[in-house]
């Protein structure tokens, strides 16, 4: 596999790999000495990879989540769905290409699929606003949430966005209203909702597709209330401190599982999903199929009640005996 891009912390691995490849291409590669050197190098690389990738810092994970070669929505649609039929439009203002929606079959099961699309090349990325929806994008998503509800099709959302878009038009057309409406629509949905975070889970823009019965997150994907850069500029007035911010935000799958915010983590190959995407596709596919089957056994009443309770219990606080001053305690 040709690697066109690597992150700083991967440099030692990449350098060793480069040396290995050079040796392998040497006409004398079959000579016993060189052969031994190759074997030794391969061993070293494996060890180094293990060391490098098994203790990734939160910031390194954020970098993997943003890796330019990481598989995005289009790849998942291609690899895990069949009979994909994309549909368009909010029926009111504009078809937002940052949100892709349609009908799909996953493991023989028909679903409505809605996800963030970050685009494939520079031109496409610009067109799709790098996966940051405008209000019409959330409204497009809502249209397809309702379609799922009307036709009793399970809903699968694929989350992968740096976040909501900070722009004049997005504000003027009420992105806060659109996000709230999206949350509200998902809350009341009478069909199973499964969310899969495949990369970046940027605050409100991600949550708008994330009010689900079961939330699956890839090992190195992150989910955060604010981007590490945004947090760093608030805390330390410097975007350079993003790595430190990533440490304190609790945005990794390990943290998210501990806090009960997500339900399932899908392992990635050493180095990230882009190293061996097939493994990840199969993992995501089987997790979706398994979950859809499980949730379809529940009644509408069970689904909506459990979804309510799922989010209802999130949040850590203390509740000592009520103040006498306060008069009463409502719950």
């Amino acid at each position, binding site marked *: 596999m040709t690697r066109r891009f690597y992150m700083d912390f991967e440099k030692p691995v990449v350098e060793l790999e480069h040396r290995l490849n050079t040796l392998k291409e040497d006409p004398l590669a079959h000579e016993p000495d060189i052969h031994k050197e190759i074997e030794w190098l391969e061993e070293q690389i494996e060890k180094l990879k293990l060391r490098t990738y098994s203790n990734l810092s939160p910031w390194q994970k954020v970098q993997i989540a943003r890796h330019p070669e990481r598989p995005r929505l289009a790849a998942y649609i291609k690899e895990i769905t069949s009979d994909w039929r994309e549909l368009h439009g909010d029926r009111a203002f504009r078809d937002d290409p940052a949100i892709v929606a349609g009908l799909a079959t996953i493991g023989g099961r028909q679903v409505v699929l809605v996800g963030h699309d970050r685009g494939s090349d520079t031109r496409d990325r610009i067109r799709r606003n790098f996966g940051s929806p405008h209000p019409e994008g959330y409204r497009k998503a809502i249209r397809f949430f309702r379609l799922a509800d009307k036709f009793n099709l399970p809903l699968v959302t694929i989350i992968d966005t740096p976040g909501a878009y900070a722009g004049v038009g997005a504000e003027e057309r*009420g992105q806060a209203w659109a996000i709230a409406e999206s949350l509200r629509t998902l809350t009341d949905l009478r069909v199973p909702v499964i969310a899969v975070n495949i990369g970046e889970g940027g605050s409100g823009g991600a949550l708008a597709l994330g009010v689900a019965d079961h939330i699956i997150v890839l090992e190195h994907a992150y989910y955060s209330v604010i981007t590490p850069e945004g947090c760093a500029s608030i805390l330390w007035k410097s975007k350079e401190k993003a790595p430190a911010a990533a440490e304190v935000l609790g945005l990794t799958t390990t943290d998210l599982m501990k806090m009960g*915010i997500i339900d399932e983590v899908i392992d990635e190959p050493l180095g990230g999903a882009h190293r061996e995407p097939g493994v990840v596709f199969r993992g995501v596919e089987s997790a979706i199929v398994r979950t859809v089957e499980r949730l379809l056994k529940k009644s509408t009443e069970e689904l909506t009640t459990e979804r309510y309770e799922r989010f209802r219990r999130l949040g850590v*606080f203390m509740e000592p005996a009520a103040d006498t001053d306060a008069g009463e305690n409502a719950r």
Partner: protein
Amino acid sequence: MPLSDWLKHRRQQLAGDPAGKRTVPGGIWSKCANCGETIYQRDILENLHVCPECDHHFPPSPDEWVAALLDKDSWRQTNSNLTPEDPLGFIGRKSYKESLAAAMAVTDGHEGIMTGHGRLADRAVYLGVMDFRFIAGSMGAVVGEKVTRLFESAKDERSPVIMVAASGGARMQEGMLSLMQMAKTTAAVARHSDAGLPYISILTNPTPGGVLASFASLGDIIIAEPRAHIGFAGPRIIQQPLGEELPKGFQRAEALLEHGMIDKIIHRRDLRNELAGLLGYLAGETSSKVGATR
């Protein structure tokens, strides 16, 4: 609390209140942060914290809001015993624990929001008032829980909810748990709404981010205070093509009205009457009577 009492209380408070200081400096005379006029402080306080010169709306405290909106002695605070935790052990420039301690010293223990119920023009209402002084009124677990309980109780009692929003958005220091409060509060609003009950949201200066993108924008009717700054993303981070300035009045209540996002802008002196009038329609005799035939 009668008006005179809370004026006294407020005056005491202002001495040690950094948020108050920012807007209405201590002492007998204050300089209005908006028009620059020097005004006898009592005149601002007695005017519900509205500058008598320029009508700028400064933030009252939750107690003052309650006194301004509800019938005398009808208020019962709920869930004031909920106190925040530090789930991430968050340390930025200062630790979350320090921020919490400082904020608690300023407020009356109600955290970022004071919730409860009372009567407005003799009609039972559930009321929440956010407190910008508590870590910029940001939504952490306590705010989320109190908002959720407010809507749940109001649903059980088949009562309307009035919410006075003022916030800095999600509370970063609680990480993803604070983002999840958006989903949690929205779900509570949805259940209250699905039961056919009215919710009036009042957006004060400022109402941004996560609070706006959840319960604050979901009112059946949304009222804003004059010139209140309301928007999802802060103006500092709005991406503009090189050199372009933000539109005039961007994210101000007046622009939001034109863009169709709010129902009306109401001067604070008229707010109580407006709420009484609106509730007369949405929670009125007619609607309950007709509802009963369903």
